[in-house]
């Protein structure tokens, strides 16, 4: 019998399919010498490598957060007394599972999760942010800041919070550095052995040019940061708590999955339409071209955000009228989330389609396509062998550029109330909730700040990476 019941959400399936597809894509790319050379120039640059590692870290978090399960509830011993005796054939106790869907990330972050306070508290504070009526020892009722239930509960009255934080920080940072040092030494050894044995031309091909120092440093920062969070998260709310007392850092980290998924899924959903229609229009011309142009002019003439907002509200209506399809809150949120990705994808394929059409028009005039036609090669094959591989750079550039756009869009959409489900952790929702508290005195800044910083790091890494990819793949990009 399984200890836990795995739950597979639709978006989980998609993200793993996506990772598999990406790996396949890279394997495929390794065959193409031109593409390989270009990718190399992306990773040789320090910024490219560092940005890629950061993105990878985010993706890893998203993947961990996509392995969902439900924990079994403790068996209720007395259950048999009321309703169960009828089913005597059942010898095994029926296991009931919690309504709460957890993920592997929750398990990793167990120290942060499930230590809820009652309301706001500042980062590293061991007192609540709001005064409460308290009965003091002598029986008087005073309004004071109560101690938090979890944060700093190990501290005695009078212990210095700062000293404790410093001490634990030092310990965790040292752990992180030690782990990193071990990794670096192992890798160094492995590389030495590799060069000594001359194993695989490919590995030294790439290994010799990668900026290892930057990679080590980036990785080191990530590892040390993770250690620090895991260690201190057990004792404090590193980024405080929100209105209902939830750990802000935990929420922010949970929102990574939403951000990463919305970026990738929405981007990938734009691809099939854009590629199919763009290339057909450019290659076949004539009425196909007219039709495709008509479709994308029509779509792009509708103000994009209007279309998105209207569609999202329609999804809401659909969910309201079909409650029977969504048993768990998580499932409902997941459906809405996928719908949002779909809508974002459907409303933003026109740009890439236009680019692909123009490029295909150009490529299909090139001599090698003409030569293929002179050999009587069929249309499908010409598109597959000659056109598509030679417009891939555009697709790739659009892919990485759109990603950050969608991550940012999620925040804005949630802000105007047409984003992901409020029950889903997302940066947009965090900002949206904090919006009402802006006028509060003193200001509750940590929730917003956490969302912005986590979002900023991802978007910045994606933008820098996109920049490098574009420099490497776009023949036009200057300087």
């Amino acid at each position: 019998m399984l200890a836990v019941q795995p739950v597979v959400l639709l978006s989980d399936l998609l993200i793993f399919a996506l990772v598999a597809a990406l790996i396949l894509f890279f394997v495929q790319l390794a065959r193409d010498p031109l593409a390989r050379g270009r990718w190399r120039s992306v990773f040789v640059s320090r910024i490219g490598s560092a940005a890629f590692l950061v993105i990878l870290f985010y993706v890893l978090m998203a993947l961990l957060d996509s392995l969902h399960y439900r924990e079994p509830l403790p068996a209720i011993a007395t259950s048999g007394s009321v309703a169960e005796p009828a089913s005597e054939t059942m010898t095994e106790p029926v296991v009931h599972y919690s309504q709460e869907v957890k993920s592997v990330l929750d398990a990793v972050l167990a120290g942060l999760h499930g230590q809820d306070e009652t309301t706001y508290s500042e980062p590293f504070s061991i007192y609540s942010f709001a005064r409460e009526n308290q009965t003091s020892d002598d029986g008087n009722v005073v309004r004071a800041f109560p101690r938090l239930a979890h944060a700093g509960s190990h501290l005695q009255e009078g212990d210095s919070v700062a000293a404790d934080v410093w001490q634990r920080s030092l310990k965790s940072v040292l752990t992180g550095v030690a782990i990193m040092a071990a990794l670096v030494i192992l890798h160094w050894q492995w590389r030495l052995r590799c060069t000594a044995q001359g194993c695989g031309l490919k590995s030294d091909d790439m290994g010799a040019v990668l900026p290892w120092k930057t990679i080590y440093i980036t990785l080191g920062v990530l590892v040390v940061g993770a250690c620090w969070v895991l260690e201190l998260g057990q004792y404090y709310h590193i980024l405080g708590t929100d209105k209902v007392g939830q750990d802000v850092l935990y929420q922010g980290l949970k929102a990574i999955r939403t951000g990463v998924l919305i970026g990738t899924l929405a981007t990938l959903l734009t691809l099939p339409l854009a590629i199919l229609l763009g290339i057909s229009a450019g290659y076949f011309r004539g009425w196909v071209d007219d039709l495709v142009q008509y479709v994308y002019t029509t779509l792009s003439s509708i103000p994009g955000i209007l279309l998105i907002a209207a569609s999202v509200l329609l999804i809401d209506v659909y969910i309201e009228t079909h409650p029977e399809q969504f048993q768990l809150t998580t499932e409902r949120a997941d459906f809405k989330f996928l719908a949002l990705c779909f809508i974002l994808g459907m409303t933003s394929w026109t740009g890439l389609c236009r680019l692909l059409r123009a490029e295909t028009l150009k490529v299909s005039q090139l001599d090698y396509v003409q030569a293929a036609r002179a050999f009587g090669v069929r249309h499908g094959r010409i598109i597959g062998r000659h056109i598509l591989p030679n417009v891939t750079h555009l697709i790739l550039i659009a892919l990485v550029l759109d990603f950050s756009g969608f991550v940012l869009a999620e925040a804005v959409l949630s802000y105007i109330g047409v984003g992901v489900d409020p029950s889903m952790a997302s940066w947009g929702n965090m900002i949206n909730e904090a919006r009402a508290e802006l006028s509060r005195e003193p200001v509750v800044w940590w929730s917003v700040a956490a969302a912005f910083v986590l979002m900023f790091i991802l978007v910045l890494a994606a933008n820098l990476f996109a920049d490098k990819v574009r420099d490497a793949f776009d023949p036009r990009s200057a300087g």
Partner: protein
Amino acid sequence: MSLLTVRDLTIELPALVNARQAQRQPMVNGISFSIDAGEILALVGESGSGKSLTALAILRLLPDTLSITGGVIELAGDNLFERTERQMNAVRGYRAAMIFQEPQSALNPVQTLLQQIGEVLVLHKGLTGAALKTAVINLLEEVGIPDPRQRLSWYPHQLSGGQKQRVMIAMALACEPELLVADEPTTALDVTIQKQILDLLNQIRRARKLGVLLITHDMGVVSEMADRVAVMRHGEILEYRPGDEFFVSPQHEYSRQLIHSLPRRDFRQPLTTPEPLLTVEGLKVWFPQRHGVLQRVVGHTRAVDGVSFQIHKGETLALVGESGSGKSTVGRAILALEPLYAGCITFDGQRIDQLSQAEFRAYRKRIQVIFQDPFSSMNPRMTIREILAEGMISLGLADDHQQREAKLQTLLLRVGMAVEHLDRYPHEFSGGQRQRIAIARAIAVEPDLIICDEPTSALDVSIRGQVLALLQELQQEMGLSYLFITHDLSIIPHLAHRVAVMSQGVLVEQGECASVMNQPQDSYTQALLAAAPVICTGL
């Protein structure tokens, strides 16, 4: 004292630009030469020899990625490298001017002729108003632009290629410089226009005692223009001598190779028993011009307007014409890549112009094509094996894998490449090698007729001869027929059995090679032949 003296000029690609290249790469390696007033020095070399960099270095216009690391350039005794950038601006356009290869892109597209030419005069002579206008009009007149007064407010795109180059020259001459640097000034132009521009340059340098540095790769141009010749290769000057001496007794092996790379003018004899393979009658390719609200067809651009000719088995027909004459469109029409407006094409006794795409497939393996640009004629993402096999697979030849592999190897060896090249990609090869692969691709399906669309015009002269020789060998072995589309008259005599001359969509003259080239009947053919530069080797 010489007008321009270049001593030990060295131009390098700094090491820091590319971390993987630890050493500095010399692009130009310690060259020296000088030019006197009124003299033309031709700096000759093939692509990548460093000749254009030398030209740019004189005016200190090199791109930022390159740096001058040694040497001295003196203009009338005045060291140009010691000048500040500001002082240098007083030299550029005033004492030394430059014209470039592509008049198309070298002129500012959004400025009128008056603005562009006037800018130099305002800058260096402070002319304004009416005086400026008169000066510009006189300049345009001098370089032979008709109606200069009206054309002052014209934009570059309203001029033809030759006229644009004239405007460039006018701009260069505006302040009566002592030195003119001309970087391949006629390469982008048709041969008749080239002749006019060269004549103009010659006339001006005599009238003004102008020293000219003429950068070119065309030995014909060198022979007609140069007082002195410097041959450049890999950033070094191999030979530096007076022009007449150079052509009579070249010293360096490479110079000899350059001179003799020009095909001799002995004519190929026509076939004794001609047997028709391809007959084209009254071929018209018209493109509709649409106009008005409803986009009705109001007229046609007549790219090809009634062309008739015949190619016999084992014969080469050269189709000669300048850019825009419609000669490439004829080739594309025969390949059914362009719809016909009217006319009839017969191949081996069968009409092929009315066949559907599917029916035409049978003829695809019999009619093949080789394109001009070896860099765009092969998909950069396919290996040579895939490129060569594509046609064979598509047309259902050599379905058996081993048979095909064997054939691919034979093909590559036949065109002078090696078997291990099969798994490489096009970008790993030079232009000449790529053109060999393109030839192998065409003969892979064993065609009867190959349409060669300017197959050698993108190649350096020394490579050109080899590729032409290969084509002729293959013709002998396989009994191929060629429709050889070209603008280059110099390669025709040795190559073609017969010649057809095309101008503005129609054939003005056709006939046996010797008769057309020696006694041209049509005035256009005569002009074309007269314009082609020839080498007087004195032999």
